[in-house]
């Protein structure tokens, strides 16, 4: 696990911010990465193999989800990923269907909104083009445990209430721009309350279609293990994310699912 000195962190952060316009930084311009110092983390999921907690190496995470505008630039530079050219094995037919055209956003897709209707393969390709990758589930969970002032707010019932509030917002209200919400204690925005996000290892969330079967004895389902169960039933954020990601395949896309990228730190 990398241990970054404070000075090293500052230098690295400065490097990552290099070239970003000041106004953009003020408004939480996406495309920026922040350094998230790692640690040992108790997941809300019950992992039989890492009972003492998951080790998270320090990593860089995009401050906000990838926007329509950013994905448009990628598609223009990589026309094989146009929605009218990409093979269906990598992206289903509704890929970027909210755009007016293959390389045109149109009025339904504002440039600063988080991009949705994007498949895991497309998300991974975008990140790779930036010299980055999708975050792992553990990295996501680690960064998302924070609220504005604490790196782990999960025990706070008020924080959990806020998470639940997002689920009552109907999908017919237009998505706000990325970076509208206050940054969390790591400086990362919109991990909650905006869109679901792909992780690189979304297919490692082994759950049963009926996730009432917690503690099920069926060890044959996943070759030596039953379905993953929750350790903390009150962590609704995790519970819903696991349910969501475990229902998807790599070519799938939905109206409320986007992504952001991560990078290893040296």
């Amino acid at each position, binding site marked *: 696990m990398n241990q970054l000195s404070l000075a090293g962190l500052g230098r690295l952060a400065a490097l990552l911010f290099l070239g970003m316009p000041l106004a953009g930084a003020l408004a939480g311009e996406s495309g920026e990465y922040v350094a998230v110092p790692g640690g040992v983390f108790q997941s809300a999921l019950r992992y039989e*193999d890492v009972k003492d907690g998951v080790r998270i190496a320090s990593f860089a995470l995009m401050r906000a989800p990838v926007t329509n505008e950013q994905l448009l630039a990628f598609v223009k530079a990589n026309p094989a990923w146009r929605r009218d050219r990409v*093979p269906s094995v990598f992206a289903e037919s509704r890929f970027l269907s909210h755009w007016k055209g293959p390389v045109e956003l149109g009025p339904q897709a504002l440039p600063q909104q988080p991009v949705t209707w994007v498949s895991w393969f497309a998300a991974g390709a975008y990140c790779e083009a930036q010299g980055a990758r999708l975050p792992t589930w553990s990295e996501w969970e680690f960064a998302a445990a924070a609220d504005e002032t604490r790196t782990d707010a999960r025990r706070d019932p008020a924080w959990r209430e806020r998470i639940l509030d997002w689920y009552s917002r109907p999908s017919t209200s237009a998505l706000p721009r990325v970076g509208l919400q206050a940054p969390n204690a790591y400086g990362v925005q919109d991990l909650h309350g905006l869109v679901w996000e792909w992780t690189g290892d979304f297919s490692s969330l*082994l759950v049963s279609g009926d996730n009432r079967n917690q503690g099920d004895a069926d060890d044959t389902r*996943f070759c030596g293990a039953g379905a993953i169960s929750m350790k903390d039933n009150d962590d609704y954020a995790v519970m819903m994310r696991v349910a969501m990601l475990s229902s998807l395949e790599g070519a799938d896309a939905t109206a409320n699912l986007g992504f952001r990228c991560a990078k290893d730190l040296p």
Partner: protein
Amino acid sequence: MTKMNSIAAFALAACLPCGAIAQPLKPGVLPSDSVYLLPLTLTDQDGIVHEWNSYRGKPRLVTMFYTSCQYICPLIIDAGKAIERSLTPAQLQRLGVVMISLDPARDSATALKETAAKRRIDTARWSLVAPPAADVRAAAAVLGIRYRQLADGDFNHTSVLILLDPDGRVLARTEQMGSNSDPGFLDAVRRATDGGP
């Protein structure tokens, strides 16, 4: 060449989603829903390197496993063999089997070869292969297989047999392992290996 660029190259080679069944494909062009479109380099039990798309041309059973797996993976092999036993000699000749390792770190060519020998696998028809570690997740994603690596290096994973047509389209899947074949899946294999070249 980055993975993304190579996906692009292959995508351009793919048929546009244009009712690929209705129109005859130009040789060399893969249909839009072919799993072979994923750029992937595989090393088999003899140390020979194959491109994933070189497996096109005949119907195949495909799965993912790892050699150190004591639990279900032997049953995956049994399932494949049981299917084969229920085919006629002509059907058997037309079918190929590919087992892709989840665990390239430990599944060297030697390890794969040992497993093939131990489980009495005919490597004339079966290929045991390992992808680069960075590509395992993408391979699993095109096949719809889910897995998690454990702290001790073992894996929890779904056990699936997938039937691909000669162009890499998924015809059928089964999660029923062991020697009692899933009758629906077996039917699909028979139909896929009937007739043809």
